[in-house]
């Protein structure tokens, strides 16, 4: 997940589909995000590279739609419904996730364990 400016970012991602839960007038997903290009990347406890300004999942509420779908704390969100999340501000990320007319959000998330699993499986061959 290291980022070299000017080079495309490659990562092993997992597709997660979250169905939003209707709670009165709100549609909730059940997790919290942190990060963004307007935020301070040094205080992100989940990122490996402390200059990474991506959007990270900081909290997953128990039993919520996100946990059910397989989202874990510390995941970095790369795309939301096709929209890029690696170079957005915090507010833009929030907006993309909480669109009122969408019931389902399809995320591409990445985490360190994905990469190690893939590498291990490749080494076995």
């Amino acid at each position, binding site marked *: 997940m290291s980022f070299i400016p000017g080079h495309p970012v490659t990562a092993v991602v997992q597709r997660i589909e979250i169905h939003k839960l209707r709670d009165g007038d709100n549609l909730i997903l059940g997790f919290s*995000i*942190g990060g963004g290009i*307007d935020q*301070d990347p040094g205080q992100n406890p989940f990122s490996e590279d402390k200059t990474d300004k991506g959007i990270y999942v*900081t*909290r997953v*509420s128990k039993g919520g739609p996100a946990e059910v779908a397989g989202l874990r704390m510390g995941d970095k969100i790369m795309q939301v419904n096709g929209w890029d999340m690696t170079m957005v501000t915090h507010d833009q990320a929030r907006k993309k996730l909480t669109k009122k007319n969408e019931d389902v959000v399809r995320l591409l998330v990445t985490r360190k364990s994905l990469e190690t699993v893939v590498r291990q499986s490749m080494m076995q061959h």
Partner: protein
Amino acid sequence: MDTESTYSGYSYYSGRSRGSHRHGERSRDRHKSRIKESSRSEKSVTINAPPAEPLLGDQSVRGEEVQDDNWGETTTAVTGTSEHSLSQEDIVRISKDLDDSVGLDCKRYLNVALSVILGLVVFLTPLAFLILPHLLWPDRLRACGTACEGLYISVAFKLLILLLAVWALFFRPPRAGLPRIFVFRALLATLVLLFVLSYWLFYGVRILDSQDEDYQGIVQYAVSLVDALLFIHYLAIVLLELRQLQPFFSLCVTRSTDGATQHYNLGQLSIQRAAVVILENYYKDFPVHNPAMLTASKSRAAKHLAGLKVYNVDGPGGNNAAAGIAQSQSRAMIAAAARRRDSSHNDLYYEEAEHERRVRKRKARLVVAVEEAFTHIRRMQEEEKKKAPGDVMDPREAAQAIFPSMARALQKYLRTTRQQHLHSMESIQQHLAFCITNNMTPKAFLESYLTTGPTLQYGKDRWLARQWTLISEASVTSGLKDGTIFLLKCIDFSLVVTTKKIPYIKLDEEFIDPKSHKFVLRLQSETSV
């Protein structure tokens, strides 16, 4: 053996009390010798001709307290072999007597005499220039009017200014006796002499021989001489006083016995002048030299050496045993000592912790005792003047009245911190009277006993070693250079001085617009979706 070191008995039992602080005043003045500090024992070297050990070889082990005048009768020297036993102090005393010859004083007086003669010659020359024509050919002189009188006044005042300036710069008591001549002063004296001689030469040839009648010209000549002398005086100020003010070198001075270090910034001086400056600062900056503090490390070192003995079994080497062990033997000894597992570090650690605890306990008792003692007296108020004269005391009596209550605690504390030889009962009472007179608090009174101050703080008789020796590889009149090292040795210790050049500092400027100080918050928000 000839070179045994023996223990002579006058360390403890020669009628000298531990706490008191007697100096052989006579011996002090006569010999300028240093005052011994008290230690456990005293080693004296038995010397039988020819001496096998160097004369001042065991210099670091200092002996006992000051020379008792009756030491001749009261010593019980347990010597092994000979009847002639000279102790180290005797040897040092004798060698110093030889040094302290009349020659040194003669040099100083010669200098003073020469400079006075030069000064007189220089001062009287313009007057001579003015007066000689009137004496030698008064009738042929053309009288000159107001212009000359104006010039007379200017000569008079310039001479007065020159006199005052020379008095201010040169007529000061010398602060130190330097081993070699002061190069700049010698150069200046030579310059002045040449200058005045050339003026006299010109005067003699052109004016005296030809008996010039133009008196105004002669007066102007005299005025020009005085002007030039004032300029030479300006040169003297610049060379002698101003040039070394700008700091150029940083000198690091370390005392050889305990490693106390100070740094001084000096200008471009010769080595001997730098030595004088350092010594003047030594008395105020360095804590007083206390040989009693060094005995602990020496005893540890002695234990190390005593652990392993090397016996030279091949051939004669009795006298050389101390001086020269073969290289291989010494290396073997060092290697064996390193391998041996001794626990002296353990001892040191616990000993120091114990000592620390003891010092703190004694200090606490002392502080309480002194504070209590100070509460017993107070300054007499105005309205109490009617008290009977028996009750009213002057500071000395007041000090003597409250001294006994704190004496014991103070004595014990001084003994624990090994300072008891630095303070006599007399000096403590004087200090107490001084503090009482000046309304000082008990803490202020104790400060001089709780911390070891610089040598200046103790009495004048504690200013050991006014005789210093400058040891240097470069010539002592040469200037300081980066990397110059020299030693200042006195009898008990030496000061090692190293020189470093202060680097050239390049300063750049950077302008900051006051309006450019702007700040933003570091955001770190977390939103739940």
